[in-house]
Every structure is written in C-alpha cells, then in structure tokens.
C-alpha cells in the first residue's frame, strides 16, 4: 500500500496560448501572402524597424497526489499568464535618436514561479546599456530533510507531516550596466546590481529540545561598480574597476507553534518542540499516573519538561566589501596574447546577536536565557590571475593560465550570556517563576582566524592539426594552503583536541603545526597542502 504523500503526482496541465501579433506592415509596402517572409514583418515608425510580440494565455493545472511535492518541484499554478513578450527596435539608418537598437524580452508574468526581463539599449559609439530583472519563487515543502522520527509508541504521537525546514522565499535580482563611449580609446562603465530575498521559512533551534522557528528572510545585496578601459596601444587595454558591495541581513527568528499544550493551572501554553518521543524521554518522560504527556484537555502532565514559552533571535548583519581591480590585456605582438588582473578586497562584517529564550532546559535547569554580543569578521583578499597564449607556429601554441586567491579572515565574537537558573533544582519546572531563579552572567570573547591561499597553474601545448583534428597535452598544478586558528574560551563546545589531531579534511592532506602541539587546549593551527585540483566552485 502506498501512502498518499508518496504517490506520484498526476499532473494535468492545459496551456492555452493566445498570440497577439503587433507586427504590421508599413502602409503601401508589398505584402505577399503566398510566400511567408523569412522573418516577422515589421512596423516602421519614427525611423525604427519595430518587431513586437506578446503571448498571453491561461495555465490550468490539476494536481493529484502530493501537492507539497508538486509545489517543490514544479509550482506552476492555474491562472491567466502573460507568458512571453519581446520588443525590438532598430534604427533604419543606425543613427537613431536616442538609440540605435533596443531589445526587451520578458516572460512569466502573472503568477509563474519564474519571471524575467532582459533589456538592451545601445547607440553606436555613445553608449551600451543592459539591464535584467529576475524573480525566482521557491516553495520547498518536501519533507525529506530534517524531519525527526516521531514514533507511534509515543504518547501523544504527533507526526511531522511537512518539512520543518519548509521555505517559501522570493528572490528578486536586478542588474544594470552602462558602458559609455564603448568604441573609444577610453570608455567608462558603471553598474548596479540588487539582490533581495524575502519570505518565510521554518528553521529549528536546539535548547533542551528542538523547537520549530519561523524564519523571516530579508537579505539584500546592493552592488555598485564603475570602471574605465584605456586603450594604450593597438589591441592593448588597461582597465581599472572599483566594486562596492553592501550586504544587509535582516532575517529574524521566532518560535512557531508545532506541539502546544496548556500549562496546568494557568492559561499559558507551552511549545514542546518537534521531536515527540516520550518512550525516549523526548521532550520528557510521562509521569504516572498520567498515560500521556498531554491529557485529553490538552494540558501538559509533566511540567518538568523541556519546552518553550518564547524564543526569538535577531542577528542583524551588515557587510561592506570594497574591491578594486586592475587588469591588462594585450595582443599587441603577433604571437603573444597576454591577459592579467589583480584585485584587492577588504570586506568588513558586523553582526550583533540578540537572542532570548524562555522555557525550560531540563538538563541545565535553565528557565530563561539571553545571549547578546557583537560578532565581527574582516576578510582581506587578493586575487591575481594571468593567461598567456604563445603562438609557436601556425599549428602549435602554448597556453599558460595562472590563478591565485589568497585571503585572511580575522574573526571575533564577544558574547554576554545571562542565564536564569532554578534555585531549587528538585522542583525546577515550567511553573517555576523567574523570581525563584538565580541569575548568572557569563561573558566570553572568541578570537579566530581563517586564512587560505590557493594557487593554480595550467600549461597546455595545443596542436591545431586541421579543421577536424587537433590535440593538446597539458599539466595542471594546484596548491592550496589554509590555516584555521581557534582561540576559544574554556568550556566551549568545540572539541579542540580532536580538531587538533585532525588528519584529513575532505580530500586534502592535513598536518598540524607546532603551535597546535605546544598549546592544544587554546590554539589550533591546521595547515593543509593539497595537490588535488580544486573544485569548480572555487
């Protein structure tokens, strides 16, 4: 027997297309209906040849089976749609005002999960402007990940039927790039990109037990860039670019209801969290004579139970990343092409934490907790690369490509943790008022650093035998060194000694440095040298 949620969804979709052609012929021009033209007929107006098409329709979808899975994978719902649109305007003389060419096309308006718009406007010798807007809607509700097993022998049995890490986010991305005087000896480029992700998702937090959190996403990246290209010699360009990236992370987390119960003798409700397995005392055991953790009136029968009254967290993140890049390209000499660039970047991140928990963490008799403190990280990055192509003869060329990326990230986090711990540990429960707890303040300061440098070089001898045959032989060498320096306070949860003895991480070979052996409890330095090719994501 196949459970309902496992059935393969039967998707029935009807897409009705209605084409509206806005292409008309100039009055007086010849039209030959018997011979279709090689390209759509155009409208000539104001000195421009105009092509335009609009496609509207209605999408009907009828989904059987798992709606959650359909939404996670396809997510195309019923409704009228503005399916596709394109517009091109080209100057007949290529000396139009204010532009020579204009291309705009877009798709997906009216409710589809993907919308896009791309535009390009240019005027010969004067400017070239490109823009795009994209909106991606993601509804992930397929419960493969992060679902705790809530067994049937638990009382109560509360199954997790949707993903605890469900998300329904929207990402809107825009890019605008303008090149001024594109064919001149000196041209200028300015650009702006905007990336904003919003929407709700679920997350979880571990504090005694695991509670479901509503995570309200709000992240924004604003990128500004400007640059100049100077053509010093024929086929030789030197470029300078300045990039300014500003990231804002305003995502917040707060308690979301999943398994709620009334607190006996009060009108308060408590949240028992996602994993409900009373046989394994999660979030706590059933105390006789009760037979269930929650009785028939919805009241909690064991008040000495891991649970939440309230939880919220904000970790407002601000990152600024100015980067400057100098690059050179030259094909001045007949047999030699050379391209090189160097970029320096220094990003600065600030993220003050503000976390509040009220409930009971049975293991530590914790009734309430706040954690505050600033987190800060700086990344100083250097990127250099070059590629050289040497045409040894008509059929042979030697190609060398080199890439270097090195950075260091000094990091710090200073936290102040205030714990409200039950005075009477025997009677500590959810009913214990905060006034009957003792306050304990712990401050800690972590100083860390993560540094990495990575070099890669590839040499190829390429043989261009003929139009159909060729070959190449090459050698690629990669060298990656990283150091992680941890300096945690005593009692931190990180297993310092074990990390210190680490032999392998991924596919890299790791050795510990003398500093690790000399002070293993306080400082770790891991040095790795890898000869394996880096992954393409790097």
């Amino acid at each position, binding site marked *: 027997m196949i459970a309902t949620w496992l059935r393969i969804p039967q998707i029935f979709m009807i897409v009705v297309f209605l084409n509206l052609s806005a292409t008309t012929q100039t009055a007086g021009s010849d039209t030959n209906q018997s011979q279709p033209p090689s390209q759509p007929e155009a409208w000539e107006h104001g000195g421009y040849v105009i092509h335009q098409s609009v496609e509207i329709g209605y999408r009907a979808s009828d989904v059987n089976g798992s709606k959650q899975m359909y939404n996670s994978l396809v997510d195309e719902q019923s409704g009228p749609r503005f399916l596709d649109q394109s517009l091109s305007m080209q100057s007949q003389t290529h000396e139009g005002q204010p532009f020579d060419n204009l291309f705009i096309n877009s798709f997906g308006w009216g409710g589809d999960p993907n919308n896009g718009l791309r535009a390009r406007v240019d005027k010969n010798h004067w400017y070239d402007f490109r823009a795009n807007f994209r909106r991606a809607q993601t509804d992930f509700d397929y419960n493969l990940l992060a679902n705790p097993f809530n067994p049937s022998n638990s009382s109560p049995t509360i199954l997790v039927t949707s993903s605890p*890490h469900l998300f329904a986010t929207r990402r809107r991305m825009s890019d605008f790039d303008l090149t001024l005087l594109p064919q001149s000896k000196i041209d200028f480029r300015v650009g702006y990109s905007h990336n904003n992700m919003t929407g709700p998702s679920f997350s979880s937090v*571990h504090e005694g037990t695991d509670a479901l959190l509503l995570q309200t996403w709000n992240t924004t990246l604003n990128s500004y860039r400007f640059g100049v290209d100077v053509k010093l010699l024929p*086929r030789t360009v030197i470029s300078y670019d300045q990039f300014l990236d500003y990231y804002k992370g305003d995502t917040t987390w707060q308690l979301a209801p999943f398994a709620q119960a009334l607190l006996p003798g009060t009108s308060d409700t408590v949240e028992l969290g996602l994993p409900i397995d009373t046989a394994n005392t999660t979030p706590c055991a059933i105390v006789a004579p009760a037979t269930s953790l929650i009785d028939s009136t919805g009241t909690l029968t064991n008040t000495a139970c891991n649970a939440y009254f309230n939880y919220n967290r904000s970790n407002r993140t601000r990152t600024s990343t100015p980067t400057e890049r100098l690059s050179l390209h030259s*094909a001045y000499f007949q047999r030699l*092409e050379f391209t090189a660039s160097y970029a320096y970047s220094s990003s600065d991140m600030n993220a003050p934490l503000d976390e509040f928990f009220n409930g009971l963490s049975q293991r530590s008799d914790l009734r309430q907790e706040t954690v505050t403190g600033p987190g800060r*990280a700086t990344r100083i990055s250097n990127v250099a690369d070059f590629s050289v192509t040497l045409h040894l003869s008509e059929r042979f060329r030697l190609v060398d*490509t080199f890439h270097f990326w090195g950075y260091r990230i000094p*990091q710090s986090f200073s936290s102040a943790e205030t714990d409200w711990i039950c005075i009477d540990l025997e009677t500590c429960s959810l009913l214990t008022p905060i006034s009957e707890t003792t306050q304990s303040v712990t401050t800690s300061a972590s100083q860390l650093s993560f540094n990495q440098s990575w070099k890669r070089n590839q040499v190829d001898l390429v043989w261009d035998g003929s139009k159909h045959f060729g070959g*190449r032989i090459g050698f690629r060498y990669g060298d990656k060194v990283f150091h992680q320096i941890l300096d945690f306070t005593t009692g931190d949860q990180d297993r310092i000694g074990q990390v210190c003895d680490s032999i392998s991480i991924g596919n890299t070979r790791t050795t510990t440095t003398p500093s690790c052996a000399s002070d293993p409890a306080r400082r770790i330095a891991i040095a790795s040298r890898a000869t394996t090719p880096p992954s393409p*994501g790097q």
Partner: protein
Amino acid sequence: MKTRRTWKQLLEWASPAVLLLLSIQATIVASPQEKNATPPEKGTGQYAGVDTCKTCHEDLYKKNFESTPHFKTTLRDGHGCESCHGPGAAHVEGGGDITKIFSFKSISRKEATAHCLSCHGEKHEQRHFSSSAHASNDVGCLDCHSPHHAKEPEHLLVQAQPKLCYGCHVTAKADFAKPYHHRVDEGLIQCSDCHNVHGTTTVRQVRSLPTGDAICAKCHADKQGPFVYEHVPVKTEGCSSCHTPHGSTNPRYLRVSQVNLLCLQCHSFPAQGPAGPTHDQSKKYQACTMCHTAIHGSNASNVFFR
C-alpha cells in the same frame, strides 16, 4: 620528503617561468601587429565599398547584415563587409571570383577566431578566449555565433541558450532535467550567467566575483560571508563539494540523498578529525541540519546552531 617538496616547488614555478622566457623571446622576434589587423591576407588590395557589395549581395545585405550589430562597421568611414572579408576590389574585378575574397568557410577555426578577436578580443568577456577550454578544444567563434544567419539577434548566436550549449554538453542537459535543478530550462538563468564561455582562469570556466568568490555568491549572497565561524569546507572545497549545481535528484541539490550521510563523509571519526555526532541518528536526529542550521557559516555559534 624535502626533495619531493623541492620538485613540487620547481614544477610550480618552472612552467610559468619557461613560458615567460618563451614569451620574451617571442616578443623580441615578433613584430607588433599592424594597427588595423582586420584586413585578411586574401583579397589584399583596394576596397570596393559597401555599395558595390550590395549590387550582388543585396539580399544578404538587407536581411542578414543591415539589421545586425556588425552594420556599425559601415559607419564613420568603416569598410562594412570588407572589414571582415577583406578588400574586395579584386573579387569584383574577377567577376565574383571567390578565391579573391576572404571567405570564413575555407579557413580553420583558429584563423576565423583570430579575425573575430581582432575586434572583440579587447572586451572583458572575451579576453581569455585564446586560453579558454573552448579554444583548446577547437571550438571557435563561428561554432556558436553566426554573423549573417543568427537565430538569436542580440549576440548573433546560432541558437539560443541553453539549447546551443546542450548541443555539446549533453550531460549538463541531463542534469538540468533532474527534479531539483537551477532554472536554466525555464529561462530564468542562462549558462553564461555562471560560466564565461569565452574563458576564465578558473576551472570549467566558472565565473568568479571580483573578490575571488565563486559566482554562486552573486545570488546566494547570504552564504558569502565572511562569517565569525566559517565552516571550513565551504571555503576550502567550495559549494560543489556538497551540492551539484546543475541539478540533482536530491533536495537542495545535495550530492547524497540524506544530509547526515553528507556530513558523515568528514565527521566520521569522533577521535580523529572533525568531531562526529554523539546522537543516535536512527532514533531522533536523522538530519544534522536539524540543530546545525547555520551550516554555511555562523556569526554566533561555533557549532553552527544559530
């Protein structure tokens, strides 16, 4: 051991050094290219002019040249058709003798590409083309672009993305058909958003940000950092050590079906290496990310709890 390291260092620096020496030698012996390198060898001589070309090739001119970006070569005393095909006076005098005009059909990809790059090579996008994987695999400009018969007018592509790319990269096509995939087939993302098809100095021609980060961070900005607590493999191995960016049968493009199996590939030995789990995953915590939610990096928890 020391000798081995010495050899590695030697290899590391020898290849660029040898190339540099060869470059210097070539630079000394090679003369600078003429300032206007476009005129090809064939048809060297007098220019016939665009109007002359039009008398015979009017159909091609009107339908397949006038509306393309290359029309700008006719402006401001440009040579138009002859900018690419070379001076055509001899061709005209020969009654249209095709041996007296430069034809792209009769030359190698390398030669054709060189002609295109004489104008386009200075652009940022095309600067690395001669050292690109496409060039090394004998893929030239005209394999993807058609100046006269383009189906995609903006970039003069012979076919729009992604079908153009799928023509060779069939495995990528299969990957994008998997249940969880980047929305390339849907038109939201193009292959060229993540790859610079004209070449980079990175592996697989993947674009990178000016800061050195992989292009993934352009959209997934919240994963870029820097973080107070970096999850080391994110930085050392890259996104693709856990995710398959083109597509996957697993949610979130993971390389394995269950997230804990992914984590355990590194976190397997409690006494050695990154600490392994202390919980019985078969009973309760089947996904490590249930608690370690900030697995890409955290600003407040060294174990990525928040």
